[in-house]
């Protein structure tokens, strides 16, 4: 990764809030708050954070799936399509639909409810391909689907089964096969390996890496499991209360975690051969409807100072790719 990489997806000051109105009173959930992301071609970008930190909403926004009550408040989202940067936030529903699954695809979390339970997997593939590829090519693409299924080490007869006949891991792998069948440039995974057994999880990670290697595309993957990130991601963004608080290459994040929250996330993981006491992050995650003033982590942070309670620090560059938003790390000039 020495040469300068081409950016494929970029956000600029992205703000997406849930605006709920109840009997005149307005409640605003700040799920994605001033996020500046730059994701490159041919990389796996991991997003880590606790549940309720806005990761799933961020993915939805990146997938350009912004529907009420979620509203885009501010900011821009750019995809790089045919060597030109396109702002996709203003696209019509039809244009969005054309990009979906062909240019950017989505791997959902609970594959239990993804498939139609009364239809064979073959039918889901047919529907899916049929709605994206017109007439002539359909046969070819279906052929491709068949080949992809075999390539990914799934049994030949998987297309003839009903969803309930497959185990959770198998279903997840079929979901991934479906998401990759039209060779999308970007694949977005929302906790694709959570709720799977460790051995199956390892198989699914293996499969995602293989797909990425052969398509040379980009995978943006959300999971709370730092172990999974260490194994799959090239770069990681740490999300807390709707904001990216630290970003860097996987090596940098694990070797030199700089935000106190990242340090907690990594140091709380139990390791084999080490039974020393491990602490979890103190307190509990803030509600996104009522984010603390200043740095949102300050109520749980052991190093909190006055300025932390007043003002949110900007992302400061530590070195090339490593950025952190914390007053402890030279955030003063930001």
């Amino acid at each position, binding site marked *: 990764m020495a040469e300068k990489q081409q950016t494929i997806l970029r956000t600029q000051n992205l703000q997406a809030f849930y605006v709920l109105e109840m009997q005149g009173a307005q409640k605003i959930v700040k799920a994605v708050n001033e996020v500046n992301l730059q994701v490159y071609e041919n990389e796996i970008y991991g997003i880590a954070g606790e549940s309720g930190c806005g990761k799933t909403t961020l993915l939805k926004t990146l997938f350009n799936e912004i529907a009420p009550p979620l509203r885009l408040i501010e900011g821009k989202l750019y995809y790089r399509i045919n060597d030109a940067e396109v702002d996709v936030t203003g696209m019509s529903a039809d244009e969005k639909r054309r990009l979906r699954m062909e240019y950017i695809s989505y791997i959902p979390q609970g594959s239990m409810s993804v498939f139609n339970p009364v239809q064979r997997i073959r039918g889901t593939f047919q529907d899916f391909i049929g709605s994206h590829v017109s007439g002539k090519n359909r046969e070819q693409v279906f052929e491709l689907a068949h080949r992809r299924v075999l390539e990914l080490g799934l049994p030949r007869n998987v297309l003839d089964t009903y969803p309930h006949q497959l185990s959770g891991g198998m279903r997840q792998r079929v979901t991934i096969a479906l998401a990759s069948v039209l060779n999308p440039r970007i694949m977005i995974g929302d906790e694709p390996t959570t709720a799977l057994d*460790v*051995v199956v999880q390892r198989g699914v990670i293996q499969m995602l890496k293989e797909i990425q290697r052969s398509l040379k595309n980009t995978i943006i993957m959300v999971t709370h499991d730092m172990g*999974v990130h260490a194994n799959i991601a090239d770069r990681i963004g740490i999300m807390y209360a709707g904001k990216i608080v630290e970003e860097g290459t996987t090596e940098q994040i694990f070797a030199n975690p700089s935000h106190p929250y990242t340090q907690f996330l990594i140091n*709380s993981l139990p390791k*084999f051969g080490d039974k020393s006491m491990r602490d979890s992050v103190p307190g509990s995650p803030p509600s996104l409807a009522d984010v603390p003033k200043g740095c949102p982590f300050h109520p749980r942070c052991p190093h909190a100072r006055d300025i932390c309670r007043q003002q949110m620090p900007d992302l400061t560059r530590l070195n090339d790719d490593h950025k952190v938003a914390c007053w402890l790390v030279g955030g003063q000039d930001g």
Partner: protein
Amino acid sequence: MVRLLEVSKLTKRYSQGNIIDRTVFTAVDHISFDINEAEVFTLAGESGCGKTTTAKLILGFEEATSGEIRHNGKVQTRNEKPWLTESVQAIFQDPFSTFNPMRRVDSYFHETVQNFRLAQSKQEATARIDKKLRLVGLTYQEIAGRYPSEFSGGQLQRISIARALVTDPKVIIADEPVSMVDASLRMSIVNLFKQLRDELGVSILYITHDLATAYYVSDRIAIMFRGKIVEMGSVDQVLMKPKHPYSKLLRDSIPQADPRQRWTTTVTLAELEQEEYLRQGCRFAGRCPDVMDICKSVAPADIRVDEALVQCHLYADQNDRQTAASYSMKTQP
């Protein structure tokens, strides 16, 4: 040492299909283990390995096909369901479905106190509940009159533990207590188990698929695979020096939070779990890298290797040569 809970040759068979075409498969197959006082014992394995069925059998939710569960030396019968005995309590996986969303959380505590007649008056009950809640880092004030939706998953799981503690149990059966809790809060639950064991002398049957927390918290561990315990011993033995090829695979598949330790080898996944259940001989034979001819026809017996029990033919020969006597003693039908 007092054996609080002894399970011997516990078996549960389920049958599937109709009268003509019936498949019987053994979800829990002759498993034996015991739990001592003030000990965390882990039952680990993948989903579909029978660990939850084992918990259900111990709690009396399911009737065992054969085998015995002794509790404090007494055999458990149909009429003495252990949840009525105060000394065995349970914690379940999903804290959000443990509690009825329409019911106030504190009512569960009062109900438990009433069921076991643990207090004479309301004040006494509240004092008892408050004491238990303080053990998990909460107070009665914090939960009184509130609904489950007002708590986070980690908090609810701690409330669930406090609820289990109300009867002063000797054993807590915890079925996947951390798998629905955020990684950052997971350690607070696991640390709580350590604290309960060390300070109150409560034993915990920790059922999990997460070997990393199992290593951190438990004293002994049993690895289950397709209804059988394939390896059992102290955590240091089993997880640091796994013997059974399946334990090795399981141990290697845990993603390490260290980008320098990425996996370099690939794994083969089971195609159908039922196939493995119905397999003759060793159930891991289809995926085992060290498979031998005997594995496909004969089910291995328990073999003692370095303080651990292993069900694998790989160790039979070696053991035969070295300690023939102890091997014949340990062989079980």
